[in-house]
């Protein structure tokens, strides 16, 4: 079922990039960036956008005193401006072997989604970093600005399916390495036998704006198999003997539905935006329509 053709497919086409140019990443929380960016911050600071007035207290910067008001009222008032900051955007790609499955493969879809979202961030001057499950030094360099598009695509293209540590370890490592706040988009199939819950809790504790794109292939959603089969897990080689009957397939659908529902409710309870997706959906469409509805994109 692994699809080798999809490995050679382009990550972002010029048409897709043209569509994504106009979009902007939105965070529900206002975070403090490290550099001044094109984004308004909760922090009042030096900017052209006026926010409010307040009474002068000693020690305030004399440059922000509104002299016109002093002339009219004979009292010092300070003009407060909204400070503009940059946004930290992290995309975490699950590059486990199970992702290299489906037509087109889930990994390709994940790469396209990550690249698309990262490209939007780059266009808006956000701080973009892409992380993958495998390898300690496998994270991308921090990218900023449209000029980094080439580096972004190069990195995303190099991501291949491989053996990965459990999701909890991956997220723990991510949290240690990235202390800044911002948006995290986790693109995964959640097929981790050790469970995804503890990993999610770690992310939630960092007060990040978390999005989970739950990618499943059409073959997983509606398996087209029949007869007496020995199912072999491509990650750990685990074998299950099944006699596929109508009844068993019905059961599978029920189990899958319960799994998806469980993930959704787990995320909702923790303010994580859960986005189910299929690997055969076009990435640009998913971003432009679906994620827009969910508020990640404007």
């Amino acid at each position, binding site marked *: 079922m692994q699809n080798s053709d999809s490995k050679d497919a382009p990550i972002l086409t010029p048409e897709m990039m043209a569509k994504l140019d106009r979009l902007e990443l939105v965070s529900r929380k206002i975070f403090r960036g490290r550099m001044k960016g094109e984004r308004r911050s909760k922090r009042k600071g030096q900017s052209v956008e006026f926010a409010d007035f307040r009474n002068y207290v000693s020690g305030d910067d004399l440059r922000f005193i509104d002299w016109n008001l002093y002339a009219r009222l004979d009292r010092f008032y300070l003009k407060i401006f909204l400070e503009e900051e940059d946004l930290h955007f992290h995309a975490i790609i699950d590059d486990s072997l199970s992702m290299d499955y489906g037509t087109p493969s889930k990994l390709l879809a994940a790469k396209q989604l990550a690249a698309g979202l990262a490209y939007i961030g780059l266009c808006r001057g956000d701080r973009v970093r892409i992380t993958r499950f495998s390898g300690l030094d496998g994270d991308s360099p921090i990218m900023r600005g449209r000029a980094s598009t080439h580096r972004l695509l190069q990195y995303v293209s190099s991501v291949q399916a491989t053996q990965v540590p459990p999701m909890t370890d991956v997220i723990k490592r991510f949290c240690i390495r990235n202390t800044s706040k911002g948006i995290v988009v986790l693109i995964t199939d959640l097929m981790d036998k050790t469970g995804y819950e503890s990993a999610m809790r770690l992310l939630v504790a960092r007060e990040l704006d978390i999005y989970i794109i739950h990618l499943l292939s059409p073959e997983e959603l509606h398996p087209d198999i029949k007869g007496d089969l020995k199912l*072999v897990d491509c*990650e750990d080689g685990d074998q299950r003997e099944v*006699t596929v009957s*109508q009844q068993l397939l019905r*059961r*599978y659908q029920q189990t899958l539905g319960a799994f998806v529902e469980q993930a959704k409710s787990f995320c909702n309870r923790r303010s994580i935006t859960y986005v189910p997706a299929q690997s055969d959906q076009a990435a640009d469409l998913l971003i432009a329509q679906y994620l827009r509805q969910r508020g990640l994109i404007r």
Partner: protein
Amino acid sequence: MSWMNSLGAWQWLLLGSIPPLIFVLYFLKLRRQPLEVPSTFLWKRTIEDLHVNSIWQRLRQNLLLFLQLLFVALVILACLRPGLNGDQLTGRRWIFLIDNSASMQATDVSPSRLEVAKAKAREKLSTMNRGDVAMLLAFSDRADVKQGFTGDKRRLMAALDAIAPTNRTTDLSEALRAAAGLANPGRASFNNINDVQVADALPATIFLMTDGGFPPNADFDLGNLTAEYIPIGNPTADNVSILAFSIERNEEKPTQIEAFARLSNEGLEPVSVTASLYFNGSLLDAAQANIAPESESGVNFQLTDLQEGELRLEIDRPDNLMVDNVAVTALRPSRQTNLLVITPGNKALETAVATERIQKLSNVRVEAPEFMETPEYAKSNEDASYDMILYDQCSPKVMPNANTLFIGSSPPDPSWTFSEPQGPVFLDDWDKTHPMMQFLELGSVRVVEGRTVKPPESGSVLITADIGPVCSIAPRGPFQDAVLGFSLIKTTDTGAEVNTDWAIKRSFPVFVYSAIEFLSGGITAAAAQTVLPGQPMGLTLSNRYEQFQIQKPDGNRETVSRGQQSQLVFTQTELPGIYQVFVDGRESPVEMFAVNLFSARESNLDVVPELPLGAENVAASKAVTRGRSEFWRWLIAIGFLLLIAEWIVYNRRVLV
């Protein structure tokens, strides 16, 4: 509710093994095809939900298995043929008479007439309804009840299959009597139909499957029977047969032997055949015969210098009946017997035993009564070295180990009773059927004085005179004793006087010859006797041996013992060919006889259009009405196969 078994033991075994087989099929580890999936995570959960690892859980949910087991149970139930007994007590009664005589081996209909008859009977049997009963008889020259009245079709079919062809001739009367036994009860005889009927008659229908070829049964009355004649065979069948085959030694030239055969063409075309004569398996001579349709022709062969052995005549032309294309006979081993004549002096008797023919038959030794006192006599008696001892006017102290003929004296055996001498004696009657009395004319014989001879209970009287029986014969263990109540010469005070004029009549040497031939068991005729297959063969063998081994044409040997009989009757003569009689200690046979199908009726393959049964003529019916063939067993078998197919399809081709 009643049950009827419709399957055999092995069929039940097969059927009984199906439910466990289905059960096993459900739990058999299948060779599964490996398929790689991204994760067995969800499947594991799914399977756990189903609890497939628990057999009983799996069984509980497996409706298909229960349906299949139910289906098999129904099939088994169907095979027991459950049913309700109806009001009607008896249905039809059928009697199948199936001819298995030699002519039914004819191959003018494929594969043979007998097989066709069996097939027709099978067809008819298959139409039997519940309540009907049938009886199965095979007949040739005797009737053989293969299966008595029964409604069990399986037993009838098995009995039908067991009917094998015979080489016998045909005689319907015995079969008809057996068949009529139940239909016309209480008959004391078939000639008198006015006797009292003691039981209710049970009318029945006879299906007679034969090609005819038997003598008419004029004295048979069908009574309550209805006969249906189903002719078997093709009237245009082609057959050339040997109707007779015999050999004769030339009286003038004893080394020359003539062989005759009578050939018959039963076909509708003239034929030219070659008859080949084999002696002990090697070709001796051959003769060509042209035979017109439905007529006979003869062939003869002149043979010289032949010792004992088997002569076989073969027609080298294939036809519809091969069993009558071969005939056999044998040149018998000549055997001289030992004869002891003890007489005080009797010219007539000595002359009679000195004839050329008796000399050929026996080594004759004549001794005076004093010889009985010698140790040589005692030893010969012990060794049974004489086949026959003739005591003239004298008797031994104990009966010897030999056949005896007493002339004018009495054996030392209290079971024989004699009267005082009386005279004159007039001979009234003599048993011409006895081999000793054949060709005798005694009416003119005059006897001066004689005694009546009353044999023991097992004996029989040969000559009866006005004073009573004067000549009798009786068995004594394996031996025969014959006693003549009057002597040829009467010894008086004045010397020897003639007691009868029999000695000067022609019948006397004939009597002596017959008596010696019968009692000593000598062989003079060149040709072996021949009988029809299945007919008993009477053999007069030397009394020196108690046990004989008879070798059949197929090489099997049968040990027979003479027992208390003077003549050995051998009945196992089914196979045509040469039968040889051996005794222990002798390599060459002591006697031979032949079994041949010399029957013009059997060789004639015509199918009679009408069968005369008593006063009625039964016309041939076209064929047995074709009955309804039952297919339910086949349907069940197909249904069962479908069920298996459905199971496979259900599991392999699930439409998602």
